[in-house]
C-alpha cells in the first residue's frame, strides 16, 4: 500500500465517521440529579394502611386463622 492509497483510506474513514461534534448536554444535569437524590420516597397510600390495619384486626379477632395463614405462606 503506497502513501497515496493510505491517504485515500484515511479520507474515506473520515467521510464514513464524521466527528461527533458538540457532545456536551444542552443543560446542566447535576441539579436534577441532586433533586432526585433529595426527594423523599413516595408515601404509603391510605388504602395500604387500611389493608394492613384490617389484617391486624382479622388476626386479633380470629387468632385461629394464624396457623392456617402460616400453612399457606
Amino acid at each position, binding site marked *: 500500500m503506497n502513501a497515496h492509497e493510505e491517504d485515500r483510506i484515511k479520507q474515506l474513514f473520515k467521510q464514513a465517521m464524521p466527528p461527533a461534534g458538540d457532545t456536551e448536554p444542552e443543560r446542566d444535569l447535576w441539579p436534577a440529579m441532586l433533586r432526585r437524590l433529595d426527594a423523599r420516597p413516595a408515601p404509603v397510600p391510605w388504602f*395500604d394502611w387500611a389493608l*394492613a390495619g*384490617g*389484617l391486624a384486626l382479622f388476626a386479633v379477632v380470629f387468632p*385461629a*386463622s394464624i396457623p*392456617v395463614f*402460616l*400453612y*399457606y405462606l
Partner: protein
Amino acid sequence: MNTHPYLRAFLAGILVPTLVLPLMLTGFIVLRLWLQISAPIERALVFPMALVPGLWGLWNMFWIGSHVRTHLSVGPHGAILPLLMLPLGTLAATHLGVLELGSAHAIWFGSLYIPYGLIALGWAAAMAAYYLVWKYVVGFLNRTLGIA
C-alpha cells in the same frame, strides 16, 4: 446486571417464604417437642416447605415475563397468587390428613374448627396480605436486583 433476569426474579421471589421457614421450624419444635402437642404438624410442613417458595419464585418469574404486556404492577400480581395456592394447599392438606372438610366447618390440624364463611373472609385477607407483601417486599427486592 442485565443478565439472567429470570434467575434473579426467582431468587427475589423465594426470599420471603424462605425467611419464614426457620420461624415455622422453631414453632414446630416448640409445639411438638416442648409442649408435646400431638397435631400432625410435620405433615402440615410439607406444603409450605416444599412447594410455597418455588411457587413464589415462579410467580415472580411470570411477572417479569408478563408485566410488559399486562402492565400489571407487582402488588396486584402477587394478590392473584392465593387464587392458585389456596386450592393447591387445600388439596395437599386434605391428602396429608391435616385438613378435614365437614358439612359446615373445615377442621384444621384435628382441632381448629373453622366455618366456611370465615374461610371466605380469610381468603380475602390472604389476598390483601399477599398484595402488601408483594408490593413492598418483593417489589423492593426486584428493584434492588435490577429487574424492575
